[in-house]
């Protein structure tokens, strides 16, 4: 598969900090890509460079096989920033039409697509309402529609589910899957790890302006697994001693064991089979949440805002 977006050694320095410091990665066409990182890691700056709002200080962006050209390519990108907003006094229909026209759609095309999306997300009755009359969740939905209306090849969603109830969040989630299936690529930026696990194919974790993790969700989990397994047995033996593993945790009939270097799961099973009957046995992979906390905790991420540049 070819990549839709490739970043090579992107850098962006502000007066007081290195917001993005030499980041490279590529995103495959049609994938759902998770851009993760703690607050202030440089995600928004990175996204703003991809959307052409900022120019990188150095490095280059290859979009769809060609060097990125902010003027032409903005019509192929849909961006929903975290700080979202709409004109409060404008009517919803007019607003969607306006934003679509700015993305290069003709009025007729735009109308057609707005009608399609409004119908799909059950928003038809909103047309003449003003944005200030909408609830937070409703305006979130409108914002999503205006982001994907012009059928961008690359859709960038910064915290798309914040403020949505589970019902609407699922609705949007299904739409995101649908868009990816139809060939659009989605960049998904968030710090809600359970959503990432559910949705994303590939993730990149940035911290302090640098990339610290890059891979598919399963790869990453494999990379960070600690050889932990949970085992459920009929009767827990009184004394468990084995050179193959150590018991990390015990809860009623369930044990969590950590397999020692050089041993395998069969060694564990063999040990228990001899003493009792096994009811279940499975590997415990770390959640992205744990990996995230593991990698970010203890770094200067929380104090980054006051860090001085030393170059």
């Amino acid at each position, binding site marked *: 598969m070819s990549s839709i977006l490739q970043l090579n050694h992107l850098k962006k320095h502000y007066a007081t900090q290195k917001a993005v410091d030499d980041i490279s990665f590529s995103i495959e066409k049609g994938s759902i890509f998770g851009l993760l990182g703690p607050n202030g890691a440089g995600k928004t700056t990175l996204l*703003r460079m991809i959307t052409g709002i900022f120019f990188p200080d150095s490095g280059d962006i290859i979009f769809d096989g060609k060097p990125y050209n902010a003027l032409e390519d903005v019509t192929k990108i849909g961006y*929903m920033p975290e700080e979202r907003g709409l004109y409060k006094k404008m009517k919803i229909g007019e607003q969607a039409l*306006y934003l679509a026209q*700015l993305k290069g759609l003709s009025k007729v095309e735009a109308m057609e697509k707005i009608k399609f999306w409004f119908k799909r997300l059950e928003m038809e009755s909103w047309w003449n309402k003003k944005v200030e009359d909408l609830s937070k969740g409703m305006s979130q939905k409108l914002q999503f529609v*205006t982001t994907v209306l012009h059928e961008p090849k690359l859709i960038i969603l910064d915290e798309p589910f914040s403020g949505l109830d589970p019902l609407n969040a699922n609705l949007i989630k299904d739409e995101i899957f649908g868009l990816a299936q139809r060939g659009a690529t989605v960049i998904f930026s968030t710090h809600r790890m359970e959503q990432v696990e559910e949705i994303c194919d590939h993730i990149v974790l940035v911290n302090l302006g640098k990339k610290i993790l890059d891979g598919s969700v399963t790869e990453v989990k494999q990379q960070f697994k600690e050889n932990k397994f949970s085992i459920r047995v009929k009767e827990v033996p009184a004394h468990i001693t084995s050179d193959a593993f150590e018991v990390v945790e015990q809860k009623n009939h369930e044990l969590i064991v950590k397999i020692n270097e050089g041993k395998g799961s069969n060694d564990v099973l063999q040990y228990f089979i001899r003493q009792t009957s096994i009811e279940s046995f499975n590997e415990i992979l770390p959640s992205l949440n744990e990996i995230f906390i593991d990698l970010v905790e203890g770094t200067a991420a929380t104090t980054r805002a006051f860090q001085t540049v030393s170059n």
Partner: protein
Amino acid sequence: MNKISIIIKREYFSRVKNRRFLLTTILTPLLFVVFIAGATILSLKGKDNHKIAVIDQNGFFKGNLKNANDINFEFPEGVDTLNYLSKGYTDILIIPKFEGTEKVNYILRSKKRIGIGTEDLISNRINQAIEDKMLQDAGINRSQLDSIKEKSKFAELKALEEKGETVQESSAGLSYGIGFGSGMLIYLTMFIYGAMVMRGVMEEKTNRIAEVMVSSVKPFELMLGKIIGIGAVGLTQFFMWILLIFGLMTAAQLFISPEVMSQVNTLQQYNGQIPTGGMVKAGEAAQKIYAIKHTVSMANWPVIIGCFIFYFIGGYLFYASLFAAVGSVVNEDPQDAQSLMFPITMPIIFSFIIMSNAVQDPNTGIATWASIIPFSSPMVMMARIAYGVPGTVSYWQLAASMISLIGGFLLTTWLSGKIYRTGILMYGKKVTWKEMGKWAFRRG
């Protein structure tokens, strides 16, 4: 380009379609009329009547001292400084015996302090009475005096201005009116529409729409679209006001009887003189209407209106982008806006002060320079143009002023664009002037 026009359309129609726009457009002139009428009524009512008891030691003021509208001179017996109030007089005027032309003080006592207008009027009346008395002493009797005063008002000043080979009639009063009026209008519009631009930018920033917009259009396009859109709203409002004024004037003419109008036409035909032996005699009303029409026709309207539109647009563009830049760096706190606006409002207010001097004396050095420098040229040049091109304002001055204004607004728009670009995406931080300067002059 296409995107800018979409933005302009939105900025324009979202304001013009607003019910408030129509309301303010119609109500503002009405408000002005009401305000002026109110002020006039108040000033008429506010004048208190003076009933002045005169104690005259000379014996000739009675009959010579003439009453004015709200001043009554009376010559009662047995009134003095102790009892004039209780006898119903507001003031008492004591004129001592004159000894030849030796300097003498007459005294006006009153309970309430009298206004400067009233004071002038009283002293004028007394001087006139003394003058009359002297003329009478010189042998001219009362009726002769009155008829001379009546007849002597036949001469009128006609100021002429050199215009190459020919001369043209000019009117300082008219020039003053036009100059001050148009300068004032430009002053008001700079504030009104400049603030409108600023509020629009602040709205985009605080509603967080800026980032969505900037991901589709360049920040500069967004700023320019807003400035042009609101400028167009301003022009629309102006044209509606002009239509309204013309409408009212035409309506007013309908109330003038056709007889008077035909007299006015005859007056116009014969340049203000009714041909002797003609059948028509111009009435007083016709004379007045003719005088107004004649004065108004003295101004070089095409030049004035053309320049007004130019300086209105130029001045607006010059300051609007600065207002936009300020709007872009303001965070939610409106007090920030106040302090950041200060350096922009200062030159506007300063220009207004220069303008009000230039309109009285259009040829001073400061007026000339201020009419060329783009910070103040829109207002000050309008004040001077009213006095005539190329008489007061030479062609090179006008050209220099216009070119520097165009250059000026291109420069401010360019610099503001750079501040705007950074400021509109900057949240939470209070921006200093130094930082804004850095953004403005940063390359790229």
